[in-house]
């Protein structure tokens, strides 16, 4: 698709936030126009990476679950094993988001288990995974 969507959104940001917004009278309209332009910039960042971020996050959680499953007894261990073997049906962002939500719910359960069991190594691995995921999802804005 040319022009590429992220480029279109970048230029739309410049037009709305840096030209149209400042041309409006100071007040609610100007502020909203400028911020709407900033939203376009953020969505342009997200366009290219959205599926990649989610696919990697899902893979990381599944890898963790597969590794942890054998050390976790009972029903939680069974669900971890099952989740660890799943794959995403496709790489549409909505599909990946649905898997991501289910995996995160299970990750919360595993994290609680690790804290209660005093499984320090597992706990550290979970925190590292969460930190890496949070880093990947950060949006960067130019100072304005």
């Amino acid at each position, binding site marked *: 698709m040319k022009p590429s969507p992220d480029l279109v959104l970048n230029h739309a940001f410049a037009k709305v936030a840096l030209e149209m917004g400042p041309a409006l*009278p100071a*007040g*609610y*309209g*100007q*502020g*909203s126009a400028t*911020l*709407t332009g*900033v*939203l376009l910039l*953020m*969505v342009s960042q*997200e366009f290219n990476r959205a599926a990649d971020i989610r696919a990697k996050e899902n893979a990381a959680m599944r890898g963790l679950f597969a590794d942890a499953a054998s050390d976790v007894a009972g029903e939680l261990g069974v669900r971890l094993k099952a989740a660890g073997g799943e794959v995403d049906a496709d790489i549409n962002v909505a599909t990946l*988001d649905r898997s*991501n*939500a289910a995996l*995160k*719910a299970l*990750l*919360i359960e595993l*994290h*609680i288990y690790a*804290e209660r069991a005093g499984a*320090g190594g597992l*706990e*550290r691995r979970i*925190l*590292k995974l*969460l*930190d890496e995921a*949070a*880093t990947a*999802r*950060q*949006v960067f*804005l130019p*100072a*304005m």
Partner: protein
Amino acid sequence: MSADLEARIVRYLAHRMPEAGRVSIISLSRIHGGASRETFRVRIDAERGGQRGLIFRRDPVSTLIETEREVEFAAYRSFMGSAVPVPGALFLERELDWLERPFFVMEEVEGCTAGSILAADPYGAHRRKIGEQFFTILGQIARRDAASSDLARHSPMPAADAAWEAELDKWEKVIDEDELEPQPIARAAIRWMRSNPPPPAQRVSIVHGDYRTGNFLFDTSGSIRAVLDWEMAHLGDPLEDLGWALDPLWSADREHPGGMLKREDAIAVWERASGLKVDPAALRWWSMFASFKGLAIWISSAKEFQAGTNTDPVMAFSGLYCLPFHNKRLADMLIQAKEIAS
């Protein structure tokens, strides 16, 4: 702006300010800012009293907790005439006939501006002067006798050792109700904060609840003229406000919280003004709480936007930018907390 709104405001002012005689509107415009209230700047010309500026803060269409506007109004009144600069709070109106929704009216503080959290250097040459005032005023808020304030009639007085838990419960509930997807970092932070509570508050004081860059007005000489946006005010641990004010989200310049002073300088100014000493462990807890509370607010904003109940771009910005920011910050703090503990 609609002529209908102008006419309604004229009718209301004639009712509330009969001593002013005939009132006409010179200008009426909506102010951009927080999405918790619709804020209008109204310049009037009164037959007796002449021209003056007023601010109308009207409840949004989407629901908010009924008591919040009462709380905000009471918070302003708690500091009128004090060293903490606030605009005069004039009228609180609950009747729906006037502007369709409840609202309150304040004096406009003219000739001022607010800093932006996206600005590289929001205060320029006045950075230090404004920073010293900013943290001094925050210390003065902490010094104010809470029990005798207007706010004490609208906000429960927690025990010194229970202030943290009341706030943590409140914002956990917001996440429980509003999360659109599971929040593993927020949940981990909640568990950590409950397992590692801060020491009791040195003093139960008025807490502004949203004290940061963007929520105060300063003039061209670098003097802070008004502290605004008290809708999350309550009684609690004053370290809550300090942790919030120091959060890195409030400035693009991460070395200077809020784009003002270095963190250690800010704490020193606050200690002098409040008469309190900052316990580093307690501030660490309240700093984590600040990012957690921010996360709860952004989760709630994202839900409102996603549901279409409030499509102000501020709500989308909160979900797209602020939410990942505070998730990352909390993840960092959780790792640091584990390292300290081990």
